[in-house]
């Protein structure tokens, strides 16, 4: 039952904007947007206008860590491999095949022929070597890419189409990492350029689009790469991209992104707020959503604080939270966590049995460990109140429900919403009793990067059995075996109260009715190669 967009129907959005908070509660009435009509022939041409919410700051995907930058960088360069968002399998892209030996330490890639950078120079095994060495040299500036290459020992180029990458330790995550834009490739001129110049757009990549202009706080213009013919094996077509050009507009105000999409001044809004969802659906705007793979929104207790050093208390936290009861305040695209990994992560397994709600058991654990209820219902022991604070910047209303649930068993959770810079500073200080965040990565190795006692060690804990499991999971690519290690590690992290999973984050994007072939990749980011526009009527 498509609703035609007339001027009369467009007059309502402001009122709608003002009462959107009220409406969000009764969104059941809103009809789902119809699926994209049956397959029509893709058309070439057109300029795709995409709204992003913040300035991307740095366009170099090898350096960038924020989603907006990565979603731009993805269009400028290709990767050795691609990852199937459905299966999580790694498939060919610029590498036609690969071989992994010596216990996952040595990766040999055979490269595709006749690939060139947008400045005309050829893409060869030397390009892979130069790019990866440059990333290592960028160090902390390459915030994601440098972690993917940690422990890099040497890179050999026996011939122009073969590159052999050797690590000091077994490195199972590396294959998935080669599918990310963070390990995408750029021409020698880019590799030689200073980090700052690359951020500003001195970027000649192999990708289906070329950077034309970058104006801070305003826009990023891309144009089609002529002669492009090496899409990923997952691509739906061959040859050049359909779109003539892509324009990312920086629009910080969510109401303006909403209104501009409704009034067709925009084609895509990548920053849909949960409040806008029901209204967009009511306006027959197509919403696409995908759960972010990786670590779900969780609480991470810091065992270097006296309070959280107590294992029974951490376990009580897990027991006292009713994850199903969080649903009413979630976006329709988010869901309650069923493991410390989101369900879109490869090797995810449903561990909801380990995350059961049992407030009686939680209270019993607390009682046994000497936490007695005071007059105000909050427990205390030896004069210390069972109270702790979390600092966060995200839009996460469900955390208030968690606060009420914990209050019922006598735990006082203090919420402190602050600007991102202050939250980051407090977390970096390592003094907070509990951290709260999520982390997107389409590989289960995300567990090792965050929890490993010899690495980031988010819990500030002593080495334990789980570290062996995490290490083993990073050393094998044999699926069943790795599955076993990952699941065991996840179970232990939950059982010991090192992770208190809450909610799976989802990326929600709204597209105008003229946009076709807009898909998420395995990391819930997007690739515009297959995207096309119908003629505007």
């Amino acid at each position, binding site marked *: 039952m498509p609703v035609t967009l007339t001027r009369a129907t467009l007059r309502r959005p402001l009122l709608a904007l003002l009462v959107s908070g009220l409406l969000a509660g009764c969104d059941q009435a809103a009809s789902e947007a119809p699926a994209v009509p049956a397959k029509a022939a893709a058309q070439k041409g057109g300029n795709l206008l995409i709204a992003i919410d913040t300035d991307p700051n740095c366009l170099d995907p090898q350096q960038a860590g924020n989603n907006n930058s990565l979603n731009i960088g993805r269009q400028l360069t290709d990767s050795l491999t691609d990852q199937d968002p459905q299966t999580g399998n790694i498939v060919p892209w610029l590498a036609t095949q690969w071989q992994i030996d010596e216990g996952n330490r040595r990766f040999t890639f055979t490269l595709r022929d006749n690939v060139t950078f947008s400045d005309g120079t050829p893409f060869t095994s030397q390009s892979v070597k130069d790019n990866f060495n440059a990333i290592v040299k960028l160090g902390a500036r390459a915030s994601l890419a440098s972690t993917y290459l940690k422990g890099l020992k040497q890179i050999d180029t026996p011939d122009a189409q073969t590159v052999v990458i050797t690590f000091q330790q077994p490195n199972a995550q590396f294959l998935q990492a080669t599918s990310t834009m963070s390990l995408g490739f750029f021409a020698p001129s880019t590799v030689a350029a200073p980090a700052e110049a690359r951020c500003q757009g001195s970027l000649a990549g192999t990708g289906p689009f070329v950077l034309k202009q970058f104006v801070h706080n305003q826009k990023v213009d891309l144009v089609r790469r002529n002669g492009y013919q090496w899409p990923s094996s997952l691509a739906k077509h061959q040859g050049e991209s359909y779109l003539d050009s892509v324009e990312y507009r920086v629009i910080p105000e969510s109401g303006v992104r909403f209104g501009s999409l409704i009034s067709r001044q925009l084609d895509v809004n990548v920053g849909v707020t949960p409040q806008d969802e029901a209204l967009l659906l009511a306006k027959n705007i197509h919403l696409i959503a995908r759960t972010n793979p990786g670590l779900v929104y969780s609480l991470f207790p810091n065992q270097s604080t006296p309070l959280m050093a107590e294992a029974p208390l951490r376990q009580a936290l897990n027991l006292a939270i009713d994850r199903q009861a969080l649903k009413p305040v979630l976006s329709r695209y988010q869901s309650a966590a069923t493991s410390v990994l989101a369900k879109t992560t490869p090797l995810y397994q449903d561990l909801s049995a380990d995350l059961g709600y049992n407030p009686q058991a939680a209270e019993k654990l607390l009682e046994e460990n000497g936490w007695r209820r005071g007059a105000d219902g909050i427990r205390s022991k030896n004069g210390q109140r069972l109270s702790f604070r979390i600092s966060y910047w995200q839009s996460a209303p469900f955390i208030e429900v968690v606060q009420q649930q914990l209050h019922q068993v006598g735990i006082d959770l203090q919420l402190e919403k602050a600007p991102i*810079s202050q939250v980051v*500073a407090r977390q970096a200080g390592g003094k907070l009793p509990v951290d709260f965040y999520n982390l997107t990565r389409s590989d289960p190795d995300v567990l090792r990067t965050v929890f490993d006692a010899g690495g980031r060690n988010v819990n500030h804990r002593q080495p334990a059995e789980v570290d062996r499991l995490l290490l083993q999971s990073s050393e094998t690519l044999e699926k069943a075996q790795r599955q076993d290690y990952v699941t065991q590690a996840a179970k232990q992290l939950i059982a010991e109260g090192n992770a208190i999973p809450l909610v799976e984050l989802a990326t929600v994007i709204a597209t105008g009715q003229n946009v076709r072939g807009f898909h998420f990749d395995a990391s819930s980011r997007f690739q515009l190669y297959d995207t096309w526009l119908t003629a505007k009527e």
Partner: protein
Amino acid sequence: MNHLLLATPKSRRRLPASLKRALQGIGVLWAAWSLTFFILYILPADPVTIMLNQGEQSTVDAAQVAALKAQYHLDLPVWQQYLLALWDLLHLNLGKSIISGDNVTDLIIQALPATLLLAVCALVVALIVGGGLAAGTSVLPSGRIKSMLLALPSLGAALPTFWSGLLLLQLFSFSHAWLPAMGNRGWQSLVLPTLTLAIPTAATLAQVMSRSLAEVWRRSFIDALRLKGAGTARLLWRHVLPNAAIPLLTLSGMVFGHLLAGAVITETIFSREGLGRLAEGAVSAQDIPLVQGVVLTAATVFVVVNFITDAIYPLLDPRLATGER
């Protein structure tokens, strides 16, 4: 410099007024710049940590982070950082943005014209609307219409810029695609931001102007001129308005400051490039060199506008040109 500033009134008289004003201006700029530095330094985060944790958590090696901080001298004691930055400033080098790596000077040169254009357009509209309203009401006989018009400026000043901007967008862009909702392209994209920014400014100007006009109308020379047969319109244009404009001029430096501050919100709503947006992003990322650059630029605009108003005074009132002020 200290010697000059602390000089006795007698020796101060020897300094030409323009040089004195220039030194004061430099003092203002230095104070604004230094204050920004120390305020940002007191905040708990540093820009490198923020850059590496954009959006989600970073898993970067601690040693590498330390190396990057050292590159920006963030590992030095605060006074050393301050002196280094001051040394660069004396060489007219505003440094590089830590977050984007761009030259601060380039970023400001790119953003400033758009903001100045917006501010000047808004000032012109505000002068016409606010001044017109004040002049119009000043000649109206007392009554219901007059009191209604007199209440308008208070209403305009009370409207949040944010709200009026969204309302204008809804009326002129979302429901009827008459004007673009965003960007810096063409005069069309300037109309709604100008109106949004002009509303509170016009209200302030009208409030001051009304009071000033009422005061001039009451003066005895007006009565004398009226007795000589001068009409209301002639009196308003030739005698009342020029006299009433002097407090307005005094106010203009402040008004311009308001406009620059209002640009932060207006540019955010209308997704415009400009100094306000640059400042907003820089502050939230605690990009110290960039924030200092923006503050210095805004302070410079402020000082220059005050210079210009000082120069205009004597043109409006020749009495101010003679003798010491």
